[in-house]
């Protein structure tokens, strides 16, 4: 099939008009149908993907390419393509999308509007991972904002309006700087001829081209542009001190949206680092590396400590995301082969594992209508299946050997130990704290004296199991056979670690 990437990206929004032709409570079926179809359509992407092609800065190595003239006067192209990094993220997005539809099964309020926004979000996320043109990338990046705003703002918890606008403003703040940086990169493109094509720009940089521009506020051009990009992406990751939107957004968002936030959205930031920010300015990256490692360590340790202090289960998981994303940053910052491979593997694994955690919080919240860790107790005796499933998910989050999280954290730490011993050792604390808050929370919820209010708590139901079990399978499978996913991105990332 031609134009397979366009199909995969735009299929979700094609059903939005159809939602209004269906009865209001059937919208979820349409959404489920199209996400499954999208998955099936995307299968040739994974089977036909040539794992030996590098991509990154080589236009010929990008696969399933599509290029159309869009705005000729500026040289903006509609340009899509995938390499090892993007294909992994596409897989993650499709899986999380499917899981999130199932997690939205109980949405009753304005169902059509919810799924319209949901599918628009899905298209925007897929688009970010395949866009090869900076303007196209920016467009998808921004289009994601307002469905997200409404999804949190309309269907969220009690403080949803505050959380939604905070998320919106934070991200926009970063992306406006990014827009200015994009214009600057385009205008002062190395080699004279201006282009928005990311791959073409990377290629020129690799050939020895540099961005020669005037000083900005007395600082060298490349550094300022680098920092502008960095802040834009760092807010999404989120990197300390830009992380404060995350706990609010996660806690107030409905379950499915928390899943998407943690599962896919956070990865966009690190994807942006790998695709645009760092390879475009390799020299500035070297200057920035030590600082980045420091930020990564702060993220890991500070996130874990915050998680330890939370009384709200969802907020605890939100902070654990901050901590786990710190590992991704550490791996990228180390810029060794293992480090970067581990970082992308961690992006995938964190996506699946945290999605699971949020789904499981959603299960208990739907029944008990609160999320205070101390408010439960002894649930293992009432809902044994739920307790068992949760235990697997928590073990995965801790990074138990045999689960996927272990492999990626191991890779990252071995990768970074070569170059940054002390920070790596401190980061190890994050894992210990991680075991601490996870097990402690598990113990308080499932063991101990049974809280009499929850004697009749309903067991996890079929739809909920359907959304969690596939993720458990992925986690265990990749824990035992991590190479099944590593082969997709290895070639690209080995090359990337060389050029950084």
């Amino acid at each position, binding site marked *: 099939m031609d134009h397979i990437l366009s199909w995969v990206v735009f299929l979700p929004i094609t059903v939005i008009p159809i939602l209004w032709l269906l009865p209001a409570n059937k919208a979820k079926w349409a959404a489920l149908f199209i996400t499954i179809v999208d998955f099936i359509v995307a299968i040739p992407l994974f089977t036909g993907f040539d794992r030996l092609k590098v991509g990154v800065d080589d236009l010929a190595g990008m696969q399933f390419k599509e290029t159309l003239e*869009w*705005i*000729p*006067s500026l040289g903006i192209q509609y340009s899509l393509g995938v390499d090892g990094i993007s294909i992994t993220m596409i897989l993650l997005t499709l899986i999380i999308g499917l899981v999130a539809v199932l997690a939205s099964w109980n949405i009753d309020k304005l169902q059509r509007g919810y799924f319209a926004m949901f599918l628009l979000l899905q298209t925007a996320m897929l688009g970010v991972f395949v866009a090869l043109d900076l303007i196209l990338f*920016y*467009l998808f990046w*921004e*289009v994601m*904002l*307002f469905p997200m*705003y*409404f999804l949190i*703002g*309309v269907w969220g918890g009690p403080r*949803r*309006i505050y959380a939604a*606008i905070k998320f*919106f*403003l934070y991200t*926009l*703040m970063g992306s*406006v*700087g990014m*827009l*200015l940086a994009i*214009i*600057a990169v385009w*205008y002062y493109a190395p080699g004279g001829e201006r282009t928005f094509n990311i791959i073409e720009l990377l290629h020129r940089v690799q050939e020895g081209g540099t961005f020669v521009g*005037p000083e*900005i*506020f007395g600082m060298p051009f490349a550094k300022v542009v680098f920092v502008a990009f960095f802040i834009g992406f760092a807010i999404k990751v989120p990197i300390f001190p830009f992380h404060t939107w995350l706990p609010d957004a996660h806690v107030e968002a409905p379950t499915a949206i928390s899943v998407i936030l943690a599962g896919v959205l956070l990865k966009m930031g690190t994807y942006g680092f790998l695709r645009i920010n760092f390879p475009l300015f390799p020299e500035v990256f070297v200057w920035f590396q030590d600082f980045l490692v420091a930020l990564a360590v702060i993220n890991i340790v500070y996130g874990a400590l915050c998680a330890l202090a939370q009384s709200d289960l969802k907020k605890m998981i939100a902070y654990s995301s901050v901590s786990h994303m710190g590992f991704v940053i550490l791996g990228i910052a180390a810029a060794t082969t293992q480090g970067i491979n581990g970082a992308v593997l961690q992006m995938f694994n964190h996506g699946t594992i945290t999605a699971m955690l949020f789904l499981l919080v959603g299960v208990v919240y739907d029944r008990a209508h609160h999320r205070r860790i101390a408010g439960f107790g002894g649930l293992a005796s009432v809902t044994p299946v739920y307790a068992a499933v949760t235990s697997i998910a928590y073990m995965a989050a801790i990074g138990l050997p045999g689960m996927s999280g272990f492999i990626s954290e191991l890779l990252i730490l071995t990768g970074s130990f070569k170059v940054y011993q002390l920070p790596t050792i401190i980061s190890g604390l994050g894992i210990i704290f991680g075991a601490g808050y996870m097990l402690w929370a598990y113990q308080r919820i499932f063991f101990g004296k049974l809280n009499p209010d929850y004697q009749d708590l309903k067991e996890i139901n079929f739809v909920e199991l359907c959304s969690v079990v596939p993720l458990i399978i992925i986690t265990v499978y990749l824990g035992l056979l991590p190479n099944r996913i590593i082969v997709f991105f290895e070639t690209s990332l080995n090359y990337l670690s060389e050029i950084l």
Partner: protein
Amino acid sequence: MTSTLPYLSYIPAHLIMGVAILVFFLAKAIPGLKNVSPVGIFVLVLIAGFVTELMMGSESKSLFFNMLQVDSYSRFYNQLFFIIIGVTVLMMKNNDEMNRSIEWEVFGLLSTICLGMMMMTSATHLLMIVVGIELVSLPSYILVALNRRFSTSKEASLKYVLFGSFATGIMLYGISLLFGLTGTLQLKSLWPALAASPNFGTPIYYIAIIMTLAGMSFKIAAVPFHFWCPDAYQAAPTPITAFLSVAPKVAGLALIMRFFADHVPVQSEQLSMIVSLIAMITMTLGNFAALRQKDIKRLLAYSSISHAGFLLMGIAVMNEVGRQYVFFYIVIYALMNMGAFMAIIYLSQGRNFEIKSFAGLIKSKPVMVVGFTICLFSLAGLPPFGGFVGKFYLFWVVIEKGFWALAAVAGVNSVVSLYYYVGVIKTMIIDEREGQMPDFSTQSSVPIGFVILCAIPIVVFGLYWNPLVNLSALVHMF
């Protein structure tokens, strides 16, 4: 005298408007005209004006001994004015804040403003500039006072008059200084003479230019001549507010661009500096003041102030490209602002303009609210809407010139502006309504169609803006 007559053939649209002014003001004295619908005549006049401007092509010509300059620049802007006034008439039809019995006079005033704006886009002589500005200002004062629903509209109008005459006074003083420095009032010879004069770069040189700029800043409501704006916008009948927030502002911007167009290269740096400063202050003040507004018309007034600041970015770079992208943004700005005001007229039913009163309207009027939301997101400059593309180009021309501070301030401002636009959206879509939904059953559905007609091109231009870029590339001065 006879030698000037042939010039008239270059300004047919001005003549049409001139005749229209006479007809409308004398209408009640002309027998037989009473039974004719004034709206019909006015629409015909607008169409005739639009078509004649369209037919004139791209020939440029200096008229009346360098008093006026007609070129594709002035013609494109004039066509825009005809369209905007046409939309205003459509809004007046769907709104009852104005007394229907004085329609003849209102159309006479609008014709006068239109003629004034056409002068502003072509004026190349400082006295012509003053005439243009006053032709626009005087009828505006009256139009603001015509709201029969809003008791303090007379007060707002008086405030408007005072500020207007103050600004004109400053401007005339500035002009006299310029004349004293150079001995000429024609822009073409004024700038070279200023650059060559011994006073070049001295305080008096700046004072003269800034004072002359005051009158024009008043028209675009740039800081510090913006004080009239929120009051006048709030008090005026809503269609007039919509009109004032777009047309005279566009004319003022066009005039400023014309005013600076003839500067000689040595001056460009300081002039850029002056305009950048005004732009930064205007957008920042407009945005931060908008954050606290509770009345939707006042909110849009401040938003239009900050947009004037954004548009000044394109003027600050002082080149042809900048002017073209100002035109680009103005087209989109007109679309989104007119769409937003039409939505307000419909949703408020001409009575309650408090943002609170829009709570939960998504439930009863989803299509209208979605259209309005698109206009607001576009005003905030979010992709994939036209407003983003407009800002994108303005950012580009500014970065091209290396005005990083201006780019950074504008960037921060577009984030701030999101907050209040989203506040309105939040009220309509997220908030629950307490009490009864307003009854929309008696209202015509024309406004809904109109807002959708604004929203569609906003989205289309946000995704594929080639046609509009090509159109802006045709906008040439001289």
